[in-house]
């Protein structure tokens, strides 16, 4: 049994799952549109939280948030489940597939059989869509892969019940029903306002534009505080989060610029085209940061000046993004 499901590759897994699933129900939204309406854009740098011994830096919202916000803002009824019993979780998945519903599933990537070894860390917030089953084999649409993949019952069960930080616990989600073509304009405006507010106003140093400055301040001290090697590892972690598979380049900044461009057309607001260009410039600045940062790995014993330079670059980026989002926050849309 295989649902007639169109697999489209995407830059980011949750955008991809959401867009592909909406398309199945007759709502065609581009990946940037899904990302923008779902307010996926964010920044956080956690000084109190370590993963694999490194500080966590993130360029987007928590897993699951994009799907929830997009469907809520479009008035689509969805359902979410999690399980304590793995076999039960698989049974429920089978039941939904038999009803002809494609199902979004949260998995850990460490045991994903079709993933290259380099990407297999214990990262438990990857999203895929399961859309069919034949015998022991499941058909899987993984948005970061170019083609449709398959997994056996045991393989799928294992990745759905991966262990470690934020275990997926068999989490799955699906669309119950779509009643009518939703009006996307109010959803877009909500999406933009939400992101702008979160980027500017959260009164904690780790989040939004403040978070970028916070990272800059800490990064400046890493070579002295942590020593050259740990400093380079932590910097490498930032660059990986910025550029690793699933960000569409420069930590989602280009996707967001593409979203603003699309909005300019839909909302008839040419000003958004200018802000899109400014967002592209911010993305390019992040890329320059990554480029310069990566040079520190090649030559690991460099002095502190280069960390200072990197921190200065981040401060400039923070100003750029603050400017963009304070305009988006107050703009008449």
């Amino acid at each position, binding site marked *: 049994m295989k649902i007639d499901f169109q697999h489209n*590759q995407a830059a980011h897994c949750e955008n991809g799952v959401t867009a592909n699933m909406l398309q199945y129900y007759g709502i065609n939204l581009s990946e940037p549109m899904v990302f923008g309406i779902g307010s996926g854009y964010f920044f956080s740098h956690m000084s109190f939280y370590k993963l694999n011994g490194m500080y966590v830096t993130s360029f987007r919202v928590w897993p699951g948030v994009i799907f929830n916000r997009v469907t809520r803002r479009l008035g689509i009824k969805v359902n979410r489940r999690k399980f304590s019993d793995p076999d039960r979780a698989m049974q429920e998945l089978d039941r939904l597939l038999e009803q002809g519903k494609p199902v979004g599933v949260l998995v850990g990537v460490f045991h994903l059989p079709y993933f290259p070894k380099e990407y297999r860390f214990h990262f438990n917030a990857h999203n895929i869509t399961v859309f069919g089953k034949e015998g022991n084999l499941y058909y899987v649409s993984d948005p*970061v892969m170019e083609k449709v993949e398959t997994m056996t019952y045991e393989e799928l069960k294992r990745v759905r019940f991966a262990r470690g930080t934020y275990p997926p616990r068999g989490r799955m989600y699906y669309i119950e029903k779509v009643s009518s073509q939703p009006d996307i304009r109010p959803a877009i405006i909500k999406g933009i306002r939400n992101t702008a507010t979160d980027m500017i106003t959260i009164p904690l140093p780790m989040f939004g534009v403040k978070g970028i400055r916070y990272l800059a301040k800490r990064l400046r001290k890493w070579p002295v505080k942590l020593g050259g090697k740990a400093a380079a*590892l932590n910097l490498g972690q930032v660059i990986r989060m910025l550029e690793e598979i699933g960000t*569409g380049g420069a930590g989602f900044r280009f996707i967001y610029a593409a979203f603003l*461009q699309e909005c300019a057309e839909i909302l008839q607001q040419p000003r958004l085209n200018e802000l*899109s260009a400014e967002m592209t410039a911010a993305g390019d600045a992040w890329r320059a940061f990554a*480029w310069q940062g*990566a040079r520190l*790995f090649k030559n690991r014993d460099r002095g502190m000046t280069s960390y200072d330079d990197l921190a200065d670059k981040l401060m400039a980026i923070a100003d750029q993004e603050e400017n963009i989002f304070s305009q988006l926050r107050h703009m008449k849309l």
Partner: protein
Amino acid sequence: MKLDEVPQDEAYLEEGKIRDVCYAVDKDGQYTRALSKGWIPKNEAIRYAWESIYEHAGETRRLVLQGKLSPIAFFMELNVMDVKILADYMEISKRKVRRHMHIKGFKKLSPELLSRYAEVLHVTPTELADTEIIRRMELKHED
């Protein structure tokens, strides 16, 4: 990022290759999708992360061969796990895992628990107990 700036620096992927979707601006200023084979800074960051994992595993191996730590400590690092992740997969407490990481606790392991460790760490029970195999293992990130 302009369309002709979408990086195509091949990564050092051992198994298969992934091309990422990117968003870039074409010559008319319109955003379009493009596929990227990889980018040097990103490849370097991934490579550096793996190199340090192998470097660390090498140090742990020295302690295993000196009889200070058990092979569990070594294979845990090759699986990019820490004590918490390993304890979660084993469904035992972190304290117990820490005990089994030392040679004294390792020797007291029951055959059942040993084979569960082997399964979780993706080795055979024989490999898990054989330090000769650990000695000969090559620890290198392949280009």
